[in-house]
């Protein structure tokens, strides 16, 4: 124990004694305070000790609450999905007019695969940027950070919301692409690649968007940060999609799907570990 005099500016306060350890995670003994003409204080509650099951339940509850909140707000405002959808439709239309499509199936598969992912990635960037920027602009980001939950639960909630919004746009865009490019895109394996690619992009994008929101040039900053990091998921998604559309064998498709799975696992794990530090002011 060490004792110290009260600060010079503080009136009628006794000497205070505190434990030397500043990293003690248990409540300290109440400080002696001379002033007594204050309302009845609430009793201090002890530190909680939780089992891992309780922690996991709290984590899922918090992540679920963030997803529910984002979906509920978007259901009313339609701000994110409508912007992403209109942008995607315009991109698809422009590519349809710009590209020569009277080619072989292999060439068509390559072209459509590129169009598909350029559309998804650019639309996704709009959604990722707005999703966290809206929290920051409205001041509600502090509300999330003040919650007594593992901050990686906030990340998973936001990433899951972004994944759902991107997925919704993709579900609408895929049939449109099929019609415009006269190539069936409703293929279970292609849907798996779309899911894995979108998951990887939303995982890394949510993480980098949470970094970019602190920057004044965040609209520019996110693509600059995100596109280089997302190159592996883009290349793997485009290659796997092209191979699937060209009806190639598993030995050509499999390695790209494995790369996508590896990328997703690595970036979700990285985000879990570093998100707390990224959102700290």
């Amino acid at each position, binding site marked *: 124990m060490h004792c110290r005099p009260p600060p010079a500016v503080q009136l009628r306060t006794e000497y205070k004694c505190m434990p030397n350890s500043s990293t003690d995670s248990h409540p300290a003994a109440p400080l002696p305070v001379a002033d007594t003409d204050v309302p009845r*204080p609430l009793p201090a509650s002890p530190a909680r000790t939780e089992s891992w099951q309780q922690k996991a339940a709290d984590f899922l509850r918090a992540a679920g*609450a963030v997803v529910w909140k984002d979906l509920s707000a978007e259901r009313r405002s339609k701000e994110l999905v409508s912007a992403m959808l209109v942008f995607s439709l315009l991109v698809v239309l422009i590519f349809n007019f710009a590209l020569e499509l009277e080619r072989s199936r292999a060439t068509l598969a390559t072209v459509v695969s590129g169009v598909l992912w350029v559309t998804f990635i650019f639309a996704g960037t709009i959604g990722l940027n707005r999703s966290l920027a809206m929290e920051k602009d409205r001041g509600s980001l*502090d509300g999330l950070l003040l*919650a*007594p939950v593992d901050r990686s639960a906030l990340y998973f909630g936001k990433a899951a919301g972004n994944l759902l919004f991107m997925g919704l746009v993709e579900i609408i865009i895929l049939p449109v692409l099929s019609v415009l490019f006269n190539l069936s895109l409703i293929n279970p394996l292609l849907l798996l690649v779309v899911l894995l690619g979108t998951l990887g992009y939303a995982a890394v994008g949510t993480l980098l968007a949470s970094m970019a929101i602190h920057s004044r040039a965040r609209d520019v900053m996110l693509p600059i940060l995100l596109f280089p990091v997302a190159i592996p998921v883009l290349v793997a998604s485009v290659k796997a999609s092209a191979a699937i559309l060209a009806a190639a064998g598993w030995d050509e498709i499999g390695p790209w799907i494995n790369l996508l799975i590896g990328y997703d696992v690595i970036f979700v794990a990285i985000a879990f570990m570093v998100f707390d530090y990224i959102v*700290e002011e």
Partner: protein
Amino acid sequence: MIETRSLTKNFGLQRVLRGVDLAVAPGEFVALMGPNGAGKTTLLRILATLARPSFGQARVAGFPLPAGAGEVRRRLGVVSHHPLLYGDLTAEENLLFYARMYGVRQRAQRLNTVLEQVGLAARRRDLVRTFSRGMQQRLAIARAVLHEPEVMLFDEPYTGLDQDASAMLDGVLRDVAARGRTVLMTTHDLARGLALADRMVILSRGVIAHSARRGEIDPATFGQTYASVVN
């Protein structure tokens, strides 16, 4: 309940807090005053676990920061000039969201209680974006007390409120304090601080320059004291 020792915060080369020593007793209501740029909001953000101190120590509800930030957040309610609410959700949905985040038990009952307390029970199903600034601030207080915190931090809660809304907020703050919560509130309004708080603390240029209990203050001359301290 709140204690800081030699608390210092730098933003780059700029030192915003220069060794703040502050102690707030359990159940005490302290008004923290000071000119713009004095470091009031920075101090509150550190106590709210939203920023880390550069040097020095801080304890809230007995837990050190930043090591005990998670435990502090459980015991802390924060109201700032941003209501920290979602305009596209109803009042009830906003509170339900925060109740889930804070793991509040018996949510429906607790929501009813806090909505009654702030007088918004009749507007519970209205979107928050249709609320006036005063109503949003009342809902922000309902959000902040939802998990029954021991410590409450108010950062300029009167910003943007008209006279009626400010008077209403006075009542809500008195009610919050009467329930035994420890309150630290930043304000520019000397009269309001004197009317509500047990103790007035003046922060100037990143240090606590003056602290006095309400009974020791002459309201007629406090303005002069404040001016002499901050200038």
